[in-house]
């Protein structure tokens, strides 16, 4: 029992909200890119087969369905972390973590073979997992700014107005997509059992 408890990685709520996030963001990003295509901000368009909804009205339906999944999931996740202190004890970035950033970057860039000593998560992971919820908050607020630029005109103004809020919303989306590929890469190189632990909660001891 003691050995297993030591390797219990992710509580159930964390695992469920993680995969709900995957689904919700998958819907939000792909339908959002279809909405982008209706009036592209920049020169490029998104290939249609990477988008969801078929046409603008369909994409909007998906987008404003996905937003509820994303927001409700976020509320559950934040409530759990505030109540349980789970995040505070694992992924929350603290000022003392600053010192670990440069050594970790050196290690990842193969400039140093020495993996800096860390707790469950290293400084870069903590930084990322602390910034991602803020990114989500930015996405939601910039989304409100362009969904309700009249009812919440102050939020729209705080993003620099309607048109600029639309750019922010896209930039936040791009940041999520970048995070997704980086996350996928790091999970892939860290091994199968690490991936499995986000489903079952448990990670094999020898690989810990």
């Amino acid at each position: 029992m003691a050995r297993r408890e030591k390797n219990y990685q992710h509580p159930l709520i964390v695992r469920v909200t993680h995969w709900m996030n995957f689904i919700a963001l998958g819907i939000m990003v792909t339908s959002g890119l279809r909405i982008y295509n209706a009036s592209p901000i920049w020169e490029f368009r998104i290939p249609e087969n990477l988008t969801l909804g078929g046409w603008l009205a369909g994409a909007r339906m998906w987008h404003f369905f996905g937003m509820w999944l994303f927001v409700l999931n976020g509320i559950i996740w934040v409530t759990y972390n505030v109540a349980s202190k789970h995040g505070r004890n694992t992924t929350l970035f603290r000022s003392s973590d600053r010192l670990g950033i440069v050594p970790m970057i050196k290690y990842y860039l193969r400039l140093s073979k020495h993996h800096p000593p860390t707790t469950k998560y290293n400084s870069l992971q903590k930084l990322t997992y602390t910034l991602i919820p803020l990114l989500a908050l930015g996405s939601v607020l910039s989304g409100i700014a362009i969904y309700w630029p009249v009812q919440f005109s102050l939020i729209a103004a705080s993003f620099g107005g309607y048109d600029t809020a639309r750019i922010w919303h896209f930039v936040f989306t791009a940041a999520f997509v970048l995070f997704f590929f980086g996350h996928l890469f790091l999970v892939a190189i860290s091994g199968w059992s690490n991936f499995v632990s986000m489903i079952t909660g448990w990670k094999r001891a020898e690989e810990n």
Partner: protein
Amino acid sequence: MKPKQSIAGMISRREILKLSPLILLSGCDITPGEKTEPLLRTVQQFNDWVQSKVFDPDKLAPEYTDADVTPEEGFRVNGKDAGEPDIDVVNWSLTIEGLVSKPGTYTLGQIAHLPKRTMNTRHCCVEGWSMIPQWAGTPLREFLRFVGADPRAKYIEVRCADDYFTSYDMPSALHPQTLLCYEAYGKPLSISHGAPARIVMPVKLGYKSAKWVHTIILTNEKPGGYWEDQGYDWFAGL
């Protein structure tokens, strides 16, 4: 509420108009399939309800200075519009029907006699682009008061010369910035922008700002709309 009859007599022109985009889009319906559509439609109706609750009838859309107004050459016409209808601007009149005490037709002269509002407000297209024209016209609520509209009526439908139609909840129609607009940039509306009169509604997406209006109907039965019937959200609040 009798639909106009086509020469064929069996199907109204509006029905044909409604079908045309469906024919065009039949190859790309709401992916990944019709199974998801009832759920998405239900959530869309729920979102309409949320929007109607969030809507504050006293909250004004931001109004901009003349310096912020989009230059007149940038006063866009949506490319999705089918084209300009044949409209007799000189002999035009506006018909009002339904739950009003003085139904009938009203001339532009009568409308222009009512209080006038000039405003620089943002027009947000559902596609994502926006512009800030300078609009002017009679607040729709002034006109509705003039014709003795029943304020307890739940909905307002507008019908247009190009067979476009849309509808609104009464609180949005009575919003002080909802205009029966007949001027833009200090000049009478051009044909491409909806002459002689159109709706301008800064509290809703652009497809609610119907051009070439010829009939306004007050009703308690929820009417649809040209785009709304095809899948766009009905409330479309901003």
